[in-house]
């Protein structure tokens, strides 16, 4: 791991300097704040918009607030994960900066590890900010959630996002341009979406983790969580290992 610490510092500084970290944090903050609000007031919006029609809309509950948050994060969060990861290696190869960095005394493994770690730090900071905002607004509009359960749910959501980011990162290692890398991430997303609808195996996809996150946030416990979490974490490791196998002998 020669040079890892230096490269990680450079990555985090770059995430900040290029505005990616603050932008992702603000976007996640927006959706963290918006989710409980929308869950609470969507029935009122529907009633106001269709005041001449008699529509029965059930009273929103805290479950709706958590479901709205998870739904938004599995759409916008995944989009952000793909956009962040797509250029992480491919962009540097395309611009020639990867070759410039790798002539210095740093290993290729450290280069890749620092790249993904920087990405993970950005995603983790964004999920933390989103979680804090959602927790505050859910408390304000509905009732307080248990801190431990909600924190565990946020970690599970983060794992799902990192999984999509890791597959896009693999794509970014395989190709020399950001757009095809994003395409690989989107294909992985579509495949995960299809597999998640299948019985028995759906829990082992990033989308399958949403149900687990919901249980953790609302009940603080979840049954049968171990294998889905282990499998999804395994996918992250496999994607990163594949990235390393590709990158270690790749002509830059």
């Amino acid at each position, binding site marked *: 791991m020669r040079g890892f610490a230096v490269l990680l510092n450079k990555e985090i500084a770059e995430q900040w300097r*290029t505005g990616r970290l603050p932008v992702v944090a603000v*976007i996640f903050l*927006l959706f963290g*704040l*918006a989710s409980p609000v929308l869950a609470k*007031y969507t029935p009122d*919006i529907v009633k106001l*918009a269709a005041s001449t029609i008699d529509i029965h809309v059930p009273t929103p509950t805290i479950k709706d607030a958590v479901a709205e948050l998870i739904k938004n994060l599995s759409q*916008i969060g995944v989009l952000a994960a793909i956009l962040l990861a797509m250029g992480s290696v491919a962009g540097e190869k395309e611009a020639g900066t990867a070759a410039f960095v790798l002539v210095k005394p740093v290993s290729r493994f450290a280069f890749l590890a620092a790249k993904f770690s920087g990405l993970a730090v950005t995603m983790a900071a964004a999920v933390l900010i989103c979680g804090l905002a959602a927790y505050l607004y859910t408390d304000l509009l509905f009732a307080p959630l248990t801190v431990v359960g909600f924190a565990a749910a946020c970690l599970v959501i983060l794992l799902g996002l990192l999984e999509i980011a890791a597959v896009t990162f693999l794509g970014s290692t395989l190709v020399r341009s950001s757009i095809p890398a994003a395409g690989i991430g989107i294909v992985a997303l579509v495949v995960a979406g299809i597999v998640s609808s299948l019985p028995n195996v759906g829990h082992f996809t990033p989308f399958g983790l949403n149900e687990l996150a919901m249980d953790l946030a609302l009940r603080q416990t979840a049954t049968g969580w171990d294998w889905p979490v282990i499998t999804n974490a395994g996918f992250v490791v496999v994607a990163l290992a594949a990235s390393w196998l590709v990158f270690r002998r790749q002509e830059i």
Partner: protein
Amino acid sequence: MILLSNMRTFLLLSSLPLASQVSTNLLLILLPLVVIELGLVVFSLVDLFRPERRVIGGNKLVWALIIVLVGTIGPIVYLLAGRKQT
């Protein structure tokens, strides 16, 4: 998309004669959301029209339309993937 169109519908309804049905507390709750969403659009446009800014595809007008017309997704895509790093 649905999320933001809901939000805009709600804000529109709040600003019309129905405003009396909306409490001050609710407007205070909504204020950060409006500030953040508008802030993202304004920040993206200011960044886009900086003379030294280079964008993917090279056409700033197209990006301006994406930022303004494609809801919250537009600024997100521009800020995370539309800018060429200098």
